[in-house]
């Protein structure tokens, strides 16, 4: 497959505050190939968000480098789309205005791009809601709107930080199906951070397990599931699912105990 699209090399991150210093990450190394969907699981507070922020170029690591497409990350880049833990749709903007936020900021709101966003909204069932305000949408629709906002600037890599944690369990399952489907259709590379093992396995081609703080990669699992339809909900019934779950559970437990 050649050179990985994203290379994380020996990343360390130290935070300083009057109370003291916290080593959040210590020597994280990870490769993500083009088109891969990789989940990163880890106990709460182990530095998952920090890792995503570093890959997104929002935060500079204390040590180590991240390269994307062979170039070291030195700031935010239009190759990367970042989705925070909460959907952060702007309440006063309509779905349409929310979807074009990134293009507006980047001054790239051309007729061609507008058409692209229109087609995204149409393809993923939000076109009729383009003039609705976020509070009129269901949890799942909000998440789709947030995803389309990220896709609008056409990034190669999507970074999802516990993107579904604000949703109730059932919505969460449906939305992870929808999001996975969209990401596959749009041929994006994705890194999903979560502390939900089942979610991590069901959505991804690979699961990386982080240790307790300071976060380090403990193991990387290639996920191969035999199921008729490769959707996150259906995949949970695959015979191998349980084995992956138990293995990862153990890896997390050793260091959380």
């Amino acid at each position, binding site marked *: 497959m050649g050179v990985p699209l994203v290379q994380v090399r020996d990343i360390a991150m130290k935070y300083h505050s009057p109370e003291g210093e916290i080593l959040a990450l210590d020597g994280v190394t990870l490769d993500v190939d083009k088109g891969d969907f990789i989940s990163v699981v880890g106990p709460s507070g182990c530095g998952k968000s920090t890792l995503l922020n570093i890959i997104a170029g929002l935060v500079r690591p204390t040590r180590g480098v991240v390269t994307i497409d062979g170039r070291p990350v030195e700031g935010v880049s239009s190759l*990367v789309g970042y989705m*925070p833990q909460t959907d952060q749709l702007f309440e006063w903007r309509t779905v349409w205005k929310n979807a074009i936020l990134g293009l*507006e900021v980047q001054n790239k709101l051309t007729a061609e791009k507008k058409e692209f966003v229109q087609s995204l909204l149409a393809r993923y069932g939000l076109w009729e809601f383009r003039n609705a*305000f976020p509070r009129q949408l269901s949890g799942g629709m909000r998440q789709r709107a947030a995803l389309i906002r990220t896709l609008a600037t056409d990034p190669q890599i999507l970074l999802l930080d516990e993107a579904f944690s604000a949703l109730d369990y059932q919505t969460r399952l449906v939305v992870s199906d929808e999001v996975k489907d969209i990401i596959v259709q749009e041929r994006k590379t994705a890194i999903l951070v979560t502390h939900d093992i089942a979610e991590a396995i069901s959505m991804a081609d690979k699961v990386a397990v982080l240790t307790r703080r300071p976060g380090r990669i403990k193991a990387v699992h290639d996920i191969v599931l035999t199921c008729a339809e490769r959707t996150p909900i259906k995949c949970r019934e695959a015979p191998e699912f349980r084995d992956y779950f138990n293995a990862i559970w153990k890896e997390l437990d050793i260091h959380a105990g």
Partner: protein
Amino acid sequence: MQVKDAAMSPEHRAYLRSLRRKRRNIAAARVLLLVALLLLWEVGANLGWVNPFITSQPSGIVRTIANLYRDGELFRHIGVTVYETVVGFTLGTLLGTAIAVVLWWWEGLAKVLEPYLVVLNSLPKISLGPIIIVWIGSGSAAIIVMALLVSVVVTILGVYSGFAQVHPDRIKLLRSFGASKGQILLKAILPGSIPTVVSALKINVGLSWVGVIVGEFLVSKAGLGYLAVYGGQVFRLNLVMTSVIILAIAAALMYQAVVFLEKLFTRWQQ
């Protein structure tokens, strides 16, 4: 209404009927209370239960209003006071918001100024009246500055803390699109704070009335505050009562106007 008339159960219809009856009764009681009070006042004054020289009386107030109107004075005084108040709270809100933006932009400055703002906020701004008169003179400008001062510090503190409540994820999202600090301000911070600014506006309306009336008490040759003070000095209680009543009506109307403005600006919340 979600339920169509035909589909409505008799109990629900009875419930709605009793609800309407209750509302009607309350409205009627309100009007009756006002009429009764005015009647009691008028009759009491005529029969000598109270001294109309000190308490004034409704018929006297109506006469005073008619006289003022005939002389063309009524709307001049109302106009002056309303003008000073509107300009005062608008400027107070705008200036307060602008200063909050400056403090947001330079966080260090905000830290430095924090204790000063806290002290200024607890200071009764009215006590600055004499200083303002010395510095600015005794015209409308001094009164407007008074109204502005009463509201500006509260606005700075309220709006600034509104800015600080914008979710850090929201700022991170914008930064991930490559947004500059100015874009973050214009796209997220300011529009997100419109509800805070409007609720500051609501408080400022009330505060500005206080500033304006006190200002008119101190200086000025026109306005409702001036009328009230003048009426008191020459012992024309009709004039005092008239200005207080007009003031009450004007203040209530202005408050409603701001509430309407609030609805207009926060349509996305409904």
